[in-house]
């Protein structure tokens, strides 16, 4: 798609089009998909996202492990609403998608399944209060896609490649950019929103308990949604982050490459390797994994082999 956020902004300026249009034109050139087909596929993706959120909010069913399921519904019903109902709704929607995902339900990866809750939670929570139409959402999705593509190019969107910063961090940056764009932010403000998001998520490890896309993934999706909203809020107020978005993305890539393999989706470190994490893995029948965790799981070659994304 684009090699950098700067290239994307430059292209939009040269062609006198919006950031969303620049995505459509570039994707069309590179893959042959026309604007109509791109629009249709985004609408289909949005439908899957919306259905997953609604199913997750309504259902009390748990995943096979019982680690997730019903928490989104509980949040809506029981939370005190410290920052109002939208805040609670944002958390609940993010968790809802991950709960559906853990039950082998239908979701849309954005950019991965493990981070699939962030973008829909932010977009659907703000859609009503901010008065965005379905067409607006479509444009927001295009901007989000452009951001994810740049991150995939310059850093990584996979937990195995760069930890959780690469998954929920990327998803949050995508969401923050979409919100900033839809609220009428300039291209520069969109770039600042990306930078504000990622600067706060640098170094976040991927340490899925029992190697499953459940804990802490569901809750990390919720906090990533908050980070995205905060970043958009600051960017739209005109606050500027002094390190450009592309350079922040490059730092994320560098941190990801240097991150110990135990913290890159292998389930051999972090929360996954705690006594509580090991006990959950043992109960899930993953004795081989527990043995490796107990061995202290050196950062050797073999340990790179385990984990989801």
């Amino acid at each position, binding site marked *: *798609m684009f090699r950098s956020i700067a290239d994307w902004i430059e292209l939009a300026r040269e062609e006198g089009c919006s950031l969303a249009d620049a*995505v459509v034109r570039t*994707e069309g050139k*590179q*893959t042959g*998909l026309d604007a109509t087909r*791109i629009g249709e*596929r*985004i609408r289909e*993706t949005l439908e*899957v996202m919306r259905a997953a959120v609604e199913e997750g909010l309504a259902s009390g069913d748990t*995943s*096979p*492990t019982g680690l997730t399921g019903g928490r989104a519904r509980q949040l809506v019903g029981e939370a005190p609403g410290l920052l109002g109902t939208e805040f609670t709704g944002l958390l609940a929607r993010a968790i809802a998608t991950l709960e*559906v*995902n*853990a*039950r*082998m*339900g*239908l*979701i*849309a*990866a*954005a*950019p*991965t*399944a*493990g981070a*699939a809750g962030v973008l829909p939670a932010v977009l659907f929570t703000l859609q009503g209060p901010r008065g965005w139409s379905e067409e607006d959402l479509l444009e927001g*999705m*295009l901007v*989000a*896609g*452009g951001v*994810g*593509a740049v991150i*995939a190019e310059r850093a*990584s*969107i*996979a937990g*195995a490649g760069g930890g959780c910063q690469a998954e929920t961090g990327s998803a949050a940056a995508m969401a923050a950019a979409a919100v900033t764009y839809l609220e009428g932010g300039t291209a520069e403000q969109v770039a600042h929103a990306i930078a504000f998001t990622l600067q706060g998520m640098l170094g976040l490890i991927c340490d899925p308990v*029992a*190697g*499953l*896309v459940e804990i802490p993934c569901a809750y990390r999706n919720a906090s990533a949604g908050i980070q995205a909203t905060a970043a958009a809020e600051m960017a739209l107020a005109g606050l500027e982050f002094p390190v450009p978005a592309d350079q922040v993305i490059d730092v994320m890539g560098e941190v990801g490459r240097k991150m110990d393999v135990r913290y890159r989706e*292998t*389930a051999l470190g972090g929360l996954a390797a705690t006594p509580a994490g090991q006990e959950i893995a043992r109960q*899930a029948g*993953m004795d*081989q*994994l527990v043995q490796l965790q107990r061995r202290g799981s050196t950062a050797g*070659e*073999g340990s*790179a*082999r*385990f*984990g*989801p*994304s």
Partner: protein
Amino acid sequence: MARLFDILGPTMVGPSSSHTAGACRLGHLAQAVLGGRPDRARIGLHGSYAMTGEGHGTKRAIVGGLLGFEPDDPRLRDSFREAEEAGLEFEFEAIDLGDTAHPNSARLEVWRGAASSRIVGSSIGGGRVRLDRIDGFAVAVTGTLPTLVVLADDVPGTIAMITGMLADGGLNLATMRVDRTGRGEQALMTIEADHEIPEPLLAELEAQEWVHWIRMIAAWS
């Protein structure tokens, strides 16, 4: 470079883009290379696939893929029962493809009547996959473009002939890769094109006496 719908999507049955959606696509590619739904399959899981595959539905996703299901097909959840109804027998084993293999790799040996195929592939992130081997030949098939696979005798002029036929048909080739067992033996060619290759052209190609078999693998939508 990442495409828009590698980032926004795929729409898929959870829980993992690499361990569920990618696994399904590997199964799907195996049946495409075989030329149809297998009646028997032996599936080797390597590394993380062997280790944490159970909790991610990796086995169900691969079997679903072998049945021709796509990553967003809800039947993936129940694919073992679907396989039984379809007459597909399968078995799983843990394998070690070595330290250089991608952590999310699988070897699929599939049979359909007298025909058989053996593929080795990896799930490389976000649901994207890459076949590394077909029947022992080195390949790099991703399924992102329509892909023609040709097993031919290793005789002079075959590559020129194939590319000539495709060019005459107005088809633009994106990539081409050839691997052979040995000089004068057999060569496997994989050709990615920008568009589907029309049926008559495939038939003409398959009729060549130096061609053993051809397969057309459709691109992911």
